[in-house]
Every structure is written in C-alpha cells, then in structure tokens.
C-alpha cells in the first residue's frame, strides 16, 4: 500500500518593532496619567462632546477639538467581558475588561476592572452590570500607558 505523501509546514516568526508617534494629543493624555494620575478628554466646540480617549479632531464634525477637559475619576460601566485566554504581553487571565463612561465624558474609555472575584462568572457579571458606578485607580509606578490605570466598583 502506498504511503501517504509527506506534507511539510514552515513556521515563520517575524520580530519587528514599530516606534509609533503618539502625537501631541495622546502624549498629553498619557503624560497626565503618568505624572499626575489624572485623565483628560478633548472637547469639540461645535458639538460640545468631550472625547475620551482624546482625539485631535472630532470624527463627527471633522473640526479640530479645542479644549482639554478633566474627566472622572468616577464613571459608569458601558460594556464588559471576561477573558480566559492569555494574550501576549497582557496580564495573566482570567480578568475583566471593558469600557467606562467617565464623569464629564461623552465617549467611553477602555480599561481593566480589578478587585472583582471572577470565580463565578454570573455573580461577577451582576457586580459589573452595565450602569454600575466605578472609580478609576492608578498604579503607584506609572509609565504612561493604559496599564497605568484600572477601574474598581465604587
């Protein structure tokens, strides 16, 4: 009987780095988080919406935003889920993450939820129900990225 043909594979790993320019707007946002533990959004003068994370322009009016507005640290949960798989460079699972509409903001900011027991997902989901009030907490050692802050139930 003829042997099945040997089929080969080839694994390719590309390890290249990108040095992304954050620009003035995101730079200000992250330096304020890093240096002062404060979160700022940008206001569109025409629509009056405060965009968080901050944008240099509104994608609705297409006008440059004009004003920094401090938001939070309180807010309410807009969306959440629980993750059970490991992602490269992210915290060990399981964890909860999602979006929070910080006080004074018109768009929601993505981040992690901490100090919620995820052993029973249904009970955890009740605690993190959409609309629940949360407060932003900041790490003692901050480097100017999204992992510098997280949300806890208020």
């Amino acid at each position: 009987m003829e042997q099945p043909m040997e089929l080969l594979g080839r694994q390719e790993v590309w390890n290249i780095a990108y040095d992304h320019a954050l620009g003035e707007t995101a730079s200000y946002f992250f330096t304020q988080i890093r240096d002062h533990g404060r979160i700022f959004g940008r206001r569109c003068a025409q629509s009056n919406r405060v965009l968080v994370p901050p944008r240099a322009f509104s994608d609705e009016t297409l006008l440059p935003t004009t004003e920094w507005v401090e938001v939070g640290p309180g807010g309410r949960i807009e969306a959440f889920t629980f993750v059970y798989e490991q992602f490269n460079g992210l915290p060990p699972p399981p964890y909860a993450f999602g979006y929070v509409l910080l006080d004074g903001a018109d768009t929601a900011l993505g981040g992690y939820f901490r100090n919620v027991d995820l052993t029973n997902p249904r009970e955890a989901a009740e605690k993190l129900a959409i609309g629940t009030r949360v407060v932003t907490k900041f790490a003692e050692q901050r480097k100017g990225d999204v992992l510098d802050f997280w949300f806890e139930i208020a």
Partner: protein
Amino acid sequence: MPYKVRPAVVGCAIRPAITGRDRSLEEIIYDISQAALADAGLTIEDIDGIVVGCNDQFDGRAISVMMASGPTGGVDRDILSTPSSSEHAFVLGALRVASGQFRTQLVVSWSPTEVSSMSEAQRLGADPYFHRALPLDELSAHAMQAGALNHVWPNAWVFAETVAVKNRRHAAVAWPDPSARPAPGKARWPLTDRMTTEPVTGAVAMVLAGADFVAERGFENPAWLRGMGWATEAAFLGDRDLSKAPALEEAARQAYEEAGIKDPAAAFDVVEITDATPYCELIAYDALGLCPREQIAARMAEGWFAKGGKSPVNLSGGVVTFNPVFCTGMIRIAEIAQQIRGKAGAHQVEGARLGLAHAGSGFALQYQSAVILGATPKGDAP
C-alpha cells in the same frame, strides 16, 4: 444610485471550511478562482478585472494581493484589493461592472488559519495608542456587544440561544456530515461556547457580468444585483452604542431604496445574516427591518426565520457553523447568489426569487453591508 449597466452573479464557488494541509494558500486561491470561472462557463480571457478581499495579518503576507495575482489570473491584468473586508471586494467589483467600464469581474476572498493566534492577529486591528494594551479581538468585541444587548433587552439571551439552535439545525441539512463541522468556539462572557465556533480556513469567489454580457452569453440563471448599501461605524468601541447597528440601518436604507423595497419583513424568500454571534443576528433583524424587537418572540414561535418559514435566515448554517473569519461576509452574499441561481444544494429554497445578504465584519461588525439579489433584473419586488 443608478447603474449604467446592471450587474449579475453568473459564477460562484464557496468553500466555507477547507481542511487538510495538502494545498498551500496560493493553491487554494487558484482552486476557488478556477471553480468560479468553471461555474460561469468562462475562462480568464473573459474577465476584464479582478478584485480580491484579503487580510495581511491572517495571510502572513504584507500586501497579500501581491501573491494573489498569479493564482487568480491577475498577471498582466487589472487586479485590486480591499483589505477592509471581503464584502467590499464584492461591492467594488459590482460597482466596476455597474460603471459600464468593465463587462466582467472576478471577485475572490479567502481566510486561512495558519497564524499561531487568530486573536493576536485581530488585536493588530486595534490602534496602538489606546487599545492595543487590551485583549481586543473580535470575540471580545462581540461579547461586549452581546452584553450591551442583554442590558437594553433582558430577554435577548433567550432569543440568542434560539437563534444558535436554529442555525445549527440548518447546518445539519446543509452539511449533513457532523465531522465536517468544527467544534464550538470559546466562551467569553456572556457568550457561551454554543454561540461561537472555532475559525476555519475558507475561500469564496464570484464572477460578475453586466447585462449586455449576460445577454450575449445567454447565462441561464443569473442572480441580478437589485440593490446594495454599505456603511462603517466608529473605530473606537467606546464611541458606539453596541446594542444598535446604525451603519447597518444606513446600508439597508441604501439597498432597499435602490431595489424599491418598501416592506423588507415580507420581501425576501431567503436571507443570510452574518451571525458572528447570534446576538449579531438579533441586532440585524431589527436594523434590516426584518422584525422589530417587540415582535421577535412571536416570529420565532411561529418559525418565521427557520427552514420552511416565511423568511428563512441562514439556511447555510451561518457563521456559527463555519467562520472563515475574513471571507465570511462575502460568503453570505455568495450563498444568496447560489439560492437565486438554484444552485445552493441541500439547503436550496425552491423557487427563490429575491434574497438579502447581510455582510458584516470587524470589531462588533464595524463594517456593514446589505446586498439584494434577484432572479430578474428588476420589477417584481414587493
């Protein structure tokens, strides 16, 4: 918008789940392109232009269209690509025929599963400033969308489970061999593993032709483009109300206006919806005007969307059965084309004359398209 020339689908090949390692990606693209041409009874010499929909991260090739020119027949020919979504390849191909500048188009899309982690490849789709440090893949986005719908519609999870059961039941007809269907996917709150599926490798191709070419070659059962629309939602999930699909409402408005459809709930013999999760299907029922939320319980109880129902949805088994992630949107359009052409196979709706395809893709279906295909160029829409 008015077409100079009305396009029709005259050839089609769908491979929603390619298993085995005996064909390289280029060979898969060659196979699907040749299968669609053969289905049309044409050769590459009859094709005036090629549009491919492909994703560099999944393919493991930068500017993936570069390697696709050979297998599709694009060497020394006109070939473009739409990295935004597979369904946009169909839209662009159809527009090129409709412009009157091209008699024919070959439209091809594919989605391999050779990357070590589909989730990590999808995460590259998030901006590197605010969202890359989150576990943001399509499943996370779909899960948060499901949670948002549950919040505004507390019974949504019951209907979502019913939708998943319906589509898996349809799959048992369309794909009777259970071993051909992949295992349930990952759970991510509030999605259960029964509401998702493991991604598979797939490919799809269609041949489009204008009315003059259709008349000249005498195709028997073309699926005529009666209307289409497409729109895009904000890139940042935090800017969106995830319980709604305004881009799909806009896409549907464009498509219905073009097709002259006033009452979509009763218009279509067959519908395909991108049920990336069953919650996506529930949102689409509403956004497409197929059924307002307050009527869904009654409609489901009478089997309105099930096989044999008034407006059957996802007789192919839908995305919950086979999810070749990047080309799954274009497969929805191809499924409707095959229904109208009478070539859908085991799940054919007898005498289907008008069908609707909803093609969505991206995080919580950021990209939304609606395509209406009919057995006649125009005229018999309700």
